[in-house]
């Protein structure tokens, strides 16, 4: 944990430096007749981020934060597996939206999560994985009039069928 904390502080300090540099693309000082420039607000805030990173590093050096006193590993095998299986499936879910449509991605994600991570029966898995996307379709497309991404062209026949029902 101790090494992890200072690594994170270092990364955040680098990000703060990037934001400071980025904010200087617009004037950061006072412009007569116009007030503070467009970069004024983000510049001082990013500087505030950098200073708070330095303060965190100082606290780490003095072993004042709980993580800086801990010899435990940052994450055990279960933690990394969770991140890979659950976090990875959420990334795949968002990636699939442009291919199999929002509703298709919801169905695939639920199928994977309920069956393979949750170890639920096929009956329950299929019942939820199919009914929820259909319910969401009617809620968003028919009631709220919000169109969700439809993916590649091969999903079109399914959408045509559903639109025939609601219109």
């Amino acid at each position: 944990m101790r090494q992890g904390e200072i690594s994170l502080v270092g990364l955040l300090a680098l990000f703060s430096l990037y934001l400071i540099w980025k904010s200087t693309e617009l004037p950061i000082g006072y412009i007569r007749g116009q007030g503070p420039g467009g970069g004024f607000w983000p510049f001082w805030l990013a500087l505030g981020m950098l200073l708070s990173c330095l303060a965190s590093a100082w606290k780490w050096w003095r072993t004042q934060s709980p993580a800086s006193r801990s010899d435990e590993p940052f994450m055990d095998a279960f933690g990394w597996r969770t991140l890979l299986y659950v976090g990875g499936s959420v990334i795949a879910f968002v990636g699939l939206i442009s291919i199999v449509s929002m509703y298709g991605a919801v169905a695939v994600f639920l199928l994977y999560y309920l069956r393979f991570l949750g170890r639920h029966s096929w009956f329950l898995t299929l019942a939820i994985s199919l009914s929820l996307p259909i319910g969401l379709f009617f809620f968003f497309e028919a009631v709220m009039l919000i169109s969700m991404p439809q993916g590649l062209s091969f999903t079109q026949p399914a959408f045509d069928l559903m639109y025939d029902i609601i219109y």
Partner: protein
Amino acid sequence: MEVMSFLADGILLALEPINLALIIAGVTVGLFIGAMPGLGSVNGVAILLPITFLVPPNSAIIFLAAIYYGAMYGGAISSVTLGIPGASTAVATTFDGRPLALQGRASLALVTAALASFVGGTVATVLFTLFAPVLASTALSFGPPEIFALMLLAFATFVGLGGDDIPKTVFSICLGLVLAAVGFDTISGEPRMVLFEIDGFMRGIGFIVLAIGVYGIGEMLWTIEQTRGEVTTTNPKMTAKGMMSDAKEAAQRGWKGTAIGSLIGFFVGILPAAGATPGSLMSYGVAKMLSKTPEEYGKGSPDGVAAPESANNSASTGSMLPMLTLGIPGSPTTAILLGGMVIWGLTPGPRLFIDQSEFVWGLIGSFYISNIAALVINLAFIPLFVWMLRMPFTILAPLIFVLSIVGGFAASRSIHDLWLIVIFGLSAFFLRKFDYPLAPAVLAIVLGPIAEPTLRQSLLLSSGDPMIFLTRPIAGPITVIAIILILLPAVKLLRRKKTFAKN
């Protein structure tokens, strides 16, 4: 006495069968829209605005105001049951509502939210009835320095919200404010902080994107990792007797937060640029500061649910005041209501109370009726919402992920924002591991778009002299209180060090 007679006529108008039916329908629709992450009162009011052309203007505004009320009640539901704030107004409700749900006390959290919302809405309606014209003119005396001082006060309360690690809290606040600055500079119109030159950032970063990332994805990953996937904390039982006992407990342990939220919410709500979100946040901060047991906040304090919930309902009523009396909308939802009024042929402004008194008093009367309807309907649906928590976590977790992604898209209609949600979620997971408080970042991204322009306008007014925040009669005391609050943790630390050195 004249006011009472107008009010009686207004209530009678609101109780006409068509208006009563519209109130019940509006509150129910609003409750469910508000409970859906990513959708809030603004979506409900905007989508249903065209339907209102089928009924007279009196009934139309009553219907839309009922949706507004219902959505304010509904925002608490996803905050408590899913841990995702349905709207920015319900962010502060998550702080104590979610811990209560994880302790198996979701019913107490929801009952407290419903009762506090009812009291907040009613107190605000009474204040509205009695002092509408006077308060409208007071609100007008709030210029950019006063509004910025108010924002500074809100940020000062964040420092208290973040626990002991002040640098991490300050980092979180600054990060939220910088993220709010991404997109375009609102004054010069130039692109600003377009991170890594990705065009998607030109649209800015919405509050909901960060909130869903932090609470919907990051918090869930953290919960699964911490509990080894075996979340056994929720076993809520719902009975009529249980709800009665929850109501009694909510009244005993949440009255103080309710009182604070009702008053602060109303006064912040009537300010044209503020609204329900700063109102609910400030009420939470003030309730925590005034509490005898501030350490209970963030761990499941009923007062911590009552303060923001009473405040957001109180503020939503308050925000109608500048809309009706001055024609200035206090929130996006009231802006749509204002548009509706113009389409119906009404002119909001000081003459509205004289020229269209039946319309105005019908609306005020409907506030009272909507509040009662919202309380009854909300309490009736609590068993349904609590039932959701009885689901095995391996079903609830994927449903929360799905609602986060789908709700995130519904709010922004952008795949770029969905990727941001995932990035924020994963980052939140790592930051949380090292005790970075993330609530201040979420609240800062909400308040950033109010704070920055008011600061720049104030400095323009004073030719760059920051003393403007200390020398104006309203802004001065607010700024001083904010500075004291910011310095308070440092004073506490010094005192602790002194005591330690003595011992």
